[in-house]
């Protein structure tokens, strides 16, 4: 087991913020273009409740989209690998849909689902579900002929084959997809808020931009970065808990299966 690396990464982030501060001060960047770190933190500190509420709003939509993507994505992947017919139909449709720039669909969701949370969650699912489906299909298909023979020689039902062999074998792949889907869910929630919303960090950015409040824009961006990073590390923790047996978790050098990153 390798040591938890968070401290090093915290230092790196702190150094990045320091660099930002230094550049703004040394080159006298106008506050209207890029405010200094101190100004941004002051903005957040002056209105903590407001930013907390907006962050929670975006976070809850993101998590809802993520959970739905995982549940339906893995479900669809299982259906696709279990049926030739679904592979030819459902999977083809999904691959075709994945090539549509999904951000372009955001206004449609507003028409269909209104300006509430539903359209944001739908947007998050739309953007992130492909990462799950594609990686899960890849993982579920990667059962080796040896393992298939083993399963058949034990005369198990199709369900046993799925639960005892296919799914656990696909888990590293699925988790790789989940990592990507987590960030894409956040993208989806923000895009949804850009299109039509009365709250959320995306809404904060858009309304602050209208008033040339660059400090607010940066405050929201900083919070988004914090949320995204935290979610990513939560996924790493989840990965370590779920697949301690995988090569990527056993020694530092090997990597987890690379996720196929679908287009946003």
């Amino acid at each position, binding site marked *: 087991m390798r040591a938890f690396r968070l401290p090093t990464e915290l230092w790196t982030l702190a150094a990045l913020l320091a660099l930002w501060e230094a550049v703004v001060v040394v080159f006298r960047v106008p506050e209207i273009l890029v405010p200094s770190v101190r100004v941004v933190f002051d903005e957040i500190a002056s209105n903590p409740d407001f930013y907390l509420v907006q962050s929670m709003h975006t976070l809850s939509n993101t998590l809802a989209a993520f959970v739905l993507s995982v549940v339906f994505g893995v479900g669809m992947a299982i259906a696709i690998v279990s049926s030739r017919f679904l592979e030819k139909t459902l999977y083809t449709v999904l691959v075709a849909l994945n090539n549509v720039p999904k951000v372009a669909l955001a206004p449609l969701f507003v028409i269909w689902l209104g300006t509430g949370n539903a359209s944001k969650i739908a947007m998050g699912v739309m953007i992130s579900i492909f990462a799950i489906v594609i990686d899960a299909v890849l993982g579920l298909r990667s059962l*080796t002929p*040896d*393992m298939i*023979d*083993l*399963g*058949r*020689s*034990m*005369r*198990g039902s199709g369900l*046993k084959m799925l639960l*005892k*062999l296919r799914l*656990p*074998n696909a*888990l590293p792949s699925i988790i790789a997809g989940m990592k990507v889907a987590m960030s894409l869910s956040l993208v989806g929630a923000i895009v949804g808020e850009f299109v039509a919303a009365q709250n959320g960090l995306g809404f904060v950015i858009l309304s602050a931009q209208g008033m040339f409040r660059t400090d607010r824009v940066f405050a929201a961006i900083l919070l988004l970065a914090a949320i995204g990073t935290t979610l990513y590390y939560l996924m790493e923790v989840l990965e370590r808990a779920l*697949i301690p*047996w*995988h090569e990527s978790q*056993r020694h530092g050098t090997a990597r987890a299966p690379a996720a196929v990153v679908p287009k946003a």
Partner: protein
Amino acid sequence: MAVAALSAANAAAAHAVVPFDDPLAIEIDAVGKTYASSDGAVTALGSVSLDVRRGEFISLLGPSGCGKTTLLRMVAGLEDTTTGHIHLHGRGLDGLGFVFQRDVLLNWRTILQNVLLPIEFRGGRPKQYRDRALALLATFGLAGFENKRPWELSGGMRQRAAICRALIDDPELLLMDEPFGALDALTRDELNVELQTLWHRSRKTTLFVTHSIPEAVFLSDRVVVISDKPGRIVEVLDIDFPRPRGLDIREEPAFGHYSRHLRDVLERHGAFRKR
């Protein structure tokens, strides 16, 4: 599936009266196998017939590509026969354990959980088999390794665990496809002795594929030599050594006679020319 149905029907028709005295375990009746491949059909097995008696240890010996794996897979119902029939007596396909050339242990399971996998597959309660699994592991020198993961074990230990997995559900029929092929000579000798001892105690009908003449002679009641292009049985040799056997029987003159005879047969059928 068809094989199971056939064997069930067969058992019902011919052996319903005194099934326990059924002297036969497997009937391989004029079985042939042709694979369709991109450059035409490949006949892996011509026509193979063999009756395997209950409790018999049979080795299948032959050059690479002669169809040994194919035959074993057909017996296990993993592959359909192109011609002929295979009848399994007794529990049929439900009563067999397969040991593969590669151990195929699952990395997400501990050794104990790997051994218990067949129980879970047939819907049994793994907890009830825990003691049996631990005892099996102990017989094969794996006591204390039950909570390790496969990658923490050596090749020989992994193959031992795979054998325990094949034995956990007390199969009537043990099919082994070059289980020791990837091991060094010392480990191989060791496992040969262990397998021989275990077999002597349980008398499970065993089909054992190997490339090694000494291994075949040491373990078997009968050695079946298969030639290639297409695969067919060219010799069935009875091995008359008392059991249990120790590695010292290899020094006996009879062991040398058997080995030389098998090498002659293989040579006559071109096994060494192509290597």
